[in-house]
């Protein structure tokens, strides 16, 4: 006697296979998938938008001129389209910022991770987080109206706008990012390494500098790189405190424009859609995106590596 095959009907109970229920699940899953897909779409849209407008720009201006001309005066009658002055401004302000943020951020991280008593850490960490949440336009105000006058007491010849004061404030602004990521990396170092070091008779300081810091190296490097990409992309502080005149200089005591400040300056004016001036901000934006993308990718690779060690 053939065994009765379970017909589809017997499964339509409350726990069985239900066509409608399955359809419902599939529908929700595809909606969730689409929202995850959106992040890829945004990235593509950014690249397409910047490249599309830049292509039109580069039909007007040769890439050679863009990369080698030493003047950036796209809105003048005698128009020059050399990105170098903007890149120089970006590099100088970022270097000043990083000279502040990297050492101070690292020292704070080492202190909080290896030395600070529990109570100090519990207060300092949220405090640093709050510091990181202050709007950049407020830091810009602070740079222009507090730090610049203060610096002018020390350097009387300092102009009202300078890369120095913008960079210094930017550095302070980036400290929380660097210190929190560096600290995370250092705390991820297993306790055994420290205990081993103590067992060999090392002091706390020797352990922190010679054992924990090298062990957390790639995490710390990733934190530095994120700090760099933040400094390069920072806009409001430099737009407010560094002046917006493109100026090919490597001297932080001078005013100059960064890539981001230039985009702000053009946006504040009234440029017609589709003009060369309008396209310049996309070409500048593309340059900026490429710079930060390179740093982000290096940071990602480093982070991936240090995750695999332990």
């Amino acid at each position, binding site marked *: 006697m053939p065994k009765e095959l379970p017909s589809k009907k017997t499964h339509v109970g409350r726990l069985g296979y239900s066509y409608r229920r399955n359809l419902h699940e599939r529908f929700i899953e595809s909606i969730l998938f689409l929202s995850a897909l959106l992040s890829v779409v945004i990235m593509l849209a950014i690249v397409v938008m910047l490249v599309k407008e830049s292509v039109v720009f580069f039909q007007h201006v040769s890439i050679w001129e863009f990369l080698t001309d030493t003047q950036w005066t796209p809105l003048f009658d005698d128009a020059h389209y050399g990105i170098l002055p903007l890149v120089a401004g970006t590099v100088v302000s970022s270097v000043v910022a990083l000279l502040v943020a990297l050492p101070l951020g690292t020292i704070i991280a080492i202190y909080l991770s290896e030395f600070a008593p529990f109570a100090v850490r519990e207060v300092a960490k949220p405090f640093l987080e709050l510091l990181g949440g202050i709007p950049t336009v407020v830091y810009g105000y602070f740079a222009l109206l507090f730090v610049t006058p203060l610096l002018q007491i020390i350097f009387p010849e300092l102009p009202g706008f300078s890369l120095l004061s913008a960079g210094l404030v930017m550095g302070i602004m980036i400290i929380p990012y660097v210190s929190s990521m560096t600290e995370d990396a250092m705390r991820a170092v297993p306790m055994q390494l420290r205990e081993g070091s103590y067992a060999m008779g090392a002091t706390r300081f020797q352990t922190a500098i010679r054992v924990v810091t090298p062990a957390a190296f790639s995490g710390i490097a990733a934190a530095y790189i994120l700090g760099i990409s933040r400094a390069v*992309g920072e806009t*409001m502080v430099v737009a407010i405190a560094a002046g917006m005149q493109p100026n090919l200089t490597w001297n932080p005591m001078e005013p100059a424009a960064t890539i981001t400040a230039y985009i702000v300056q053009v946006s504040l004016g009234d440029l017609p859609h589709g003009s060369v001036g309008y396209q310049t901000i996309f070409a500048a934006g593309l340059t900026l995106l490429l710079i930060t993308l390179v740093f982000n990718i290096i940071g990602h690779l480093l982070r991936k590596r240090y995750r695999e060690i332990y």
Partner: protein
Amino acid sequence: MITGIIALMIAILTFIALFAQMLIDGMPRLSWDFFTSFPSRRPESAGILSAWVGTTLVMLVTAVSAVPLGVGAGVYLEEYAPKNLFTEIIEINVTNLAGVPSIIYGLLALGLFVYQLGFGQSILAAGLALALLILPVVIVATREAIRSIPIAIREGAYALGATKWQTVSDHLLPYSSAGILTGIIIGLARAIGETAPIITIGALTFIAFLPPSPITDEFPYISFEWLTAPFTVMPIQMFNWVSRPEEAFQLNAAAAGLVLVVMTLTMNGLAIYLRYRMRKNIKW
């Protein structure tokens, strides 16, 4: 050890200096009139009415668009996504998006929302630009909150015959709501202070009128006209005042900055408090 304390002190002192400077300059300007007046050519009668109304409306658009999309994407990546190359691409992409400078989002919004889609320099365009900006923050917070829920909760739900979505909507989302909320608040606090993308879409800085009210007298009582209205927001208003040479306007900037900082600090503080309570109370 001592250098550590000194470094920490430098950060703290800077913050105190920043706050004190704004307090001294801005406090005298803070009055009821400051909140209920439009910006003006005369610094002593200028106020931030259009700015805070604009900020509120822009944040509304940002929250309404970023929260469902961000939470949805987070849930997908954490609970549904198969382990394959495509998922990895999405994950790398989210990390990369978080590292893109905010002004680039402004350029995207300028090209896409303002011109391509024809939204103009409106509240809608600004709100969407900021939504894209904070999307990675919401996604990462959602993922972390959901990841911290033990697998046993899911297995319990499946054992009782729940489908995947029933498990997510009845268990995972409610249990992770505090963590997700923390992420949303941090994201919105960031969006409130963002200036660069909004300048880039070409928002006007002198707005002495309010957008049309969302509530009307006639049927259907709700109007969406405000979405397409020109606007200004708090950080733009502050930037505008900072860049004026007259000192009186810079006092206004300090006052606006004070309001802005109090807003963001309150939101961030709330987020930190929520996380602290969560860590204390939830024991799986």
